[in-house]
């Protein structure tokens, strides 16, 4: 990543100055974080605070260390204020996320066991966590395909984000078809997206014969994916923006992986009819069914989180937390497996949102113990 100083420099400098307050604090931070480098080599010693802040950013860019320096600023901001990390999140287009605030004493954790996904509580999915732990070592074939399904608003996309969090950063691409604008997504656009727009030489095709483009596009796609060991993560496979040939391409790509044509490449699909996948995938692919957490899952989440935060919680406290989380939420499972609210009870998406808010509260309460 190359930080664009002409676009964001002024705002970043102003926030650094505001947050550090003094040149001494700023330079002390530099000496603590950028080792083996004299502070005077990084920032001019005669300039104003603004100039020095600008110097740090320019130095980081010139050394190709801008991401590293911004990450350190986001991880360990002056006075623990969130303002600078938030700004860094913005200027880096979300590439540098504010990590756990070290002053809270939270220890790092294996992403597969994380309590949060994209800052939101993630309580359950034991099966998904287990699959993802071993997924990078999966054998070629059906073992390299994971299908996530479930009813609406039960957290399929949430599972996808979790999978993305567990995927090797440099080998993963997330194709969220739900993010496509309101126009048809054709087979070529999808193939290019799956390759994260790194290749622009996809075969041309006649728009009146998009069906016949599926074969050449698959050949091109598999040739590009071969040997990359990529994790291709596709969400919202049933969206209506997909043209029929584009939808066929997803199925065919799954078939190529099932046939062992793309050893090392992993495919995670959400919102797709597993039974319609080719070969043995309906039976032999990994499968995770998204459901809202139940009492048992929330209880495990509370206990594990407390342990991780090195807090002691009594059985009664755990019980209170869990009961509080589900207070007023009564969902029933319909014959088709979907969950709906009864009468004035919350609908499934409302229930999901309520649970999330309550898990946040629980997290705060445990930290406060």
């Amino acid at each position: 990543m190359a930080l664009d100083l002409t676009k964001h420099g002024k705002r970043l400098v102003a926030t650094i100055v505001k947050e550090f307050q003094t040149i001494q604090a700023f330079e002390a931070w530099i000496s603590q974080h950028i080792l083996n480098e004299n502070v005077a080599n990084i920032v001019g010693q005669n300039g104003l605070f603004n100039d020095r802040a600008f110097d740090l950013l320019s130095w980081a860019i010139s050394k190709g260390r801008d991401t590293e320096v911004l990450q350190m600023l986001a991880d360990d901001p002056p006075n623990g204020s969130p303002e600078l990390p938030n700004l860094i999140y913005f200027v880096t287009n979300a590439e540098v996320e504010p990590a756990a605030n070290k002053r809270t004493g939270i220890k790092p954790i294996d992403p597969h066991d994380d309590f949060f996904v994209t800052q939101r509580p993630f309580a359950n999915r034991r099966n998904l966590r287990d699959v993802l732990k071993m997924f990078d070592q999966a054998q070629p074939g059906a073992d390299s395909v994971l299908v996530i399904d479930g009813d609406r608003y039960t957290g399929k996309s949430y599972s996808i984000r979790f999978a993305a969090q567990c995927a090797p950063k440099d080998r993963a691409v997330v194709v969220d078809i739900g993010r496509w604008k309101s126009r048809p997504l054709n087979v070529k656009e999808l193939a290019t997206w799956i390759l994260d727009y790194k290749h622009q030489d996809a075969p041309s095709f006649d728009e009146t014969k998009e069906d016949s483009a599926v074969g050449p596009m698959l050949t091109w796609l598999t040739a590009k994916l071969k040997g990359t060991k990529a994790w291709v993560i596709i969400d919202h496979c049933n969206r209506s923006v997909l043209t029929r040939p584009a939808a066929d391409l997803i199925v065919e790509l799954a078939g190529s992986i099932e046939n062992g044509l793309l050893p090392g490449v992993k495919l995670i699909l959400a919102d797709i009819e597993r039974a319609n996948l080719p070969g043995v995938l309906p039976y032999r692919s990994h499968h995770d069914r998204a459901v809202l957490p139940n009492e048992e899952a929330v209880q495990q989440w509370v206990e594990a989180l407390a342990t991780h935060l090195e807090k002691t919680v009594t059985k009664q406290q755990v019980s209170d937390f869990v009961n509080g989380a589900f207070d007023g939420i009564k969902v029933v499972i319909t014959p088709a497996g979907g969950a709906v609210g009864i009468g004035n009870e919350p609908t499934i998406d409302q229930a999901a949102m309520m649970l999330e808010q309550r898990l946040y509260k629980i997290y705060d309460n445990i930290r406060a113990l």
Partner: protein
Amino acid sequence: MAAMRTTAPDSLDSTPEWPYLAGAAVLTAFDADTLRPLGGGEPDFSQVTAMLVRHAEPIKAGPDRGRWRLRDDVRRGVLRTLGSREQIQAALAANVSERSDDSTQRALAELVSGKTPPSLDGRSFEDLLGWERAVEWLGATRITGLPSRVDILERIERHKLFTNMTRLVVGFEGRVDDLRTLRSYVDHLPSESVLEALGRFAGRIRDAFRGRPPLVIHGPGGAGKSTLISKFILDHAGHGRAKPMAFVLLDFDRRSLDPAKPDALLTEVAQQVRTQFPDLAEDSEHLISATGAALAAEDVSDYSKSDFDASATARRGLVELLNRIASRDNQNILFVLDTFEIVQRRGPTAVYTLLRFVAELLVEVPRLRVVIVGRGVLRKQDFPFADDVPEWTPMPLRGFDPVAGRAYLRARLKTSDVGAVSDAQLDRLVQQVNGNPLGLRLAAQVFAREGLAGVEEAIGRQRLSAAVEEERVQGLLHARIVEHLEDEDLKKLADPGLIVRRLSVGVVRDVLAKPCGITFEKTTPEVLFDALRKEVSLVEELDEKTLRHRPDVRLIMLPSQRRRLSDIARRIDDAAVSYWERFPGPAERAEELYHRMWRGDSVADLERRWMPAAGPLLEDALDEFYVVAPEGAARTWLSEKLRRELPEDVRRQADRRVWERDVERKARTLMTSGRFDEAQKIIHERPLSEWTDNSPLWLIEIDILLLKKDGVAQAGVVIRMALDRLKNTDDPDLALALLQRRVSAEERMEDRTRAYESAVESLALARTLRNPVSIFACGVVLLRLARQTNRLGEPEIVSLRTELVGLSKEDAILRALPERPSLMREAAAELGADAPGLLVLALERLGLEAGAFANLAAGSGLTDELVKFFQRGTMPAPGTRDTLTMRADWVHDIAKGVGSGLVSRESLQALARFYAASVDRLLKQTFG
């Protein structure tokens, strides 16, 4: 570690970032710098960034790259909190300048601006996509009067059905006679003239005797066949028609439509019916489910026990559905099979199977009208193996008429820098080439460069009076285009360089330059390649770096070019092989193989370089070889690789092995569709005495005999003969397969003792082969016979059972079972009580037959926990198979229960007993 919040939010609207959340929630995308808060006031950027971190994500591609959007779940939460039209309007008003010009944004604004649901009629495809998303977002609010999302989705699917057709008919003109012929055949709209009405009347009388045979439209590529049928469908069923015609369009250009499996087409038919008739969604779903069951019952290796009932049930479902539409709406239904040349490529048996399928449908659905569209002519003599080849009515699509030809030429000349062109000039061009589309395309190119005089000079003024073959005219035009290329090097590149199919800068430099005499003193490979790219009548772009010689032009010029340039062609082939063999990909391997075949490499060499992924890229090459290449082993080899049947004359003269392989392929295609008599006729093309000792045809012959009511004795004779002949050679796999058939034959003759002995013998042979699937299959049969003869308690059977339970967990078995449903059912029956995974697999794949639930629940040993699982679903409809694939929840729960020990052994035994009863009943049906 991922980010963790440090403070918990209260309700969304009490957080400091709420005004920005509200602003962002009504925007499809926003710029963080200019986002305005709900309620106005100066933005606080620190609150904006706090909102971004918690609730938004950056857009990293497309026109909105660099902007942000709210996560969908947060958006729904915010919209729910905003709740009312007024609040959402206020949030929109705060950010008027931030609104993108996309259909979702427009739909959102429109939906909150009025209280009555806006009409969906006449909305474009993109508009509907936007509406769907906006309605989904607003579904969380208290806003009433929103259009139904289901209704929008139905309209979107309907638009998708027409998208390609709408694109195809842009600029369509003429073809009046052809449209009239179609109108008369389909007979949906009233006649447009008295003459047409009379013609239709005569047609009805004629069809009453002939059974309304399918109309087969055939013509060369580019003639506008698909465009014609699209125009017809849009005229009869397109948007805004008062009484839209019901239609099904199966385009074999779609890879997932397998012409060899008519049953698999039913799913697509059902989906198209569901799209056109949402009120019949339930019936369509039922058909999809039945089709799934039929496909699940297909056994790749065991015809004698395949459940053809499932196929019949699915087809019956289709007939009922189509008849229901026809009678309810009092209309004929159009059923189109497009790009039929793909089926024809497969060979006559695939074509025959489909024609029979269609013919049977026509009998069962009196108001069905079938139109088949393809390049090749259908000929009765292509089906010598069948006595009941269905009738059809050919409709050759000749060249464009003057009106259509004019429109076509004007469209092509639009991109050329030619001045005004009169209708008279265009009409003359159309006449010169007989309206042939390829001829027109080439003539347009010559005309654009040299005017009418150039065209007449190229093909001669006598063209108007002399019957010169169309292809010769096209060849002359092609030669003229090449001759008049302005650049001498480009001319050399086009002739002889276009002997290659695929061109890149590397091919120009390393393959063509030397044989074509190009020295690059005045030019570079890059410049030449770019110049060739502009010759659109000769080449088409595959991607930015690759061109392809147009296949239609290629077939015209290649024969003469190959003859004329045999030595140079050989040098190009050699250079091309050396060039392409350096690359690893399938596209490159296809070119290497193509040139190897042209230069006559041995089959052994071709086999050594074969790569399955290159196969589809050689389909066109095989077409080419059948037109221009000499006879040869390479051609036969490629036919086999591409699973294409050999042409009649080639097969008849082929040696025994090649003939047997081809005939086996044909017979299996026919057997998959239950055409056993035709399959038998094909394999008897040569007498049994001429079959090789280990011919694959022995098994086909035996399987067919075993399925015939009085064929078992004959099957026994053939089995003995085959086993006897097998003594001359070493083929233990075939020996095992024959022994397995012997078990079936003896069971069929109710000689269980001998059947048991044969099963013991086959298991012993399977053990020597060390193939786990064979051991498993033979072992399961032996267990069944032991159960039926009360030998389950014998020590060797107990030990075998333990062995098979262990085997059932092996990957090889789990991979094989989904393709062998008969074996899966038997395995679930014999081993399910001890191998619950097999039961789960069988439940998921085969489901439970109708009525099974009632039997299971009524005191058959099924314990409460499984009854509970089944009660969660609805009962299967009478007379249908419940595949359970639609009820993934059940299987999921059962699997979970089985894995965790929640499901008792009694329940497993009960389920296994169900499958055992099912196996016994099916065997009785097959043998009985």
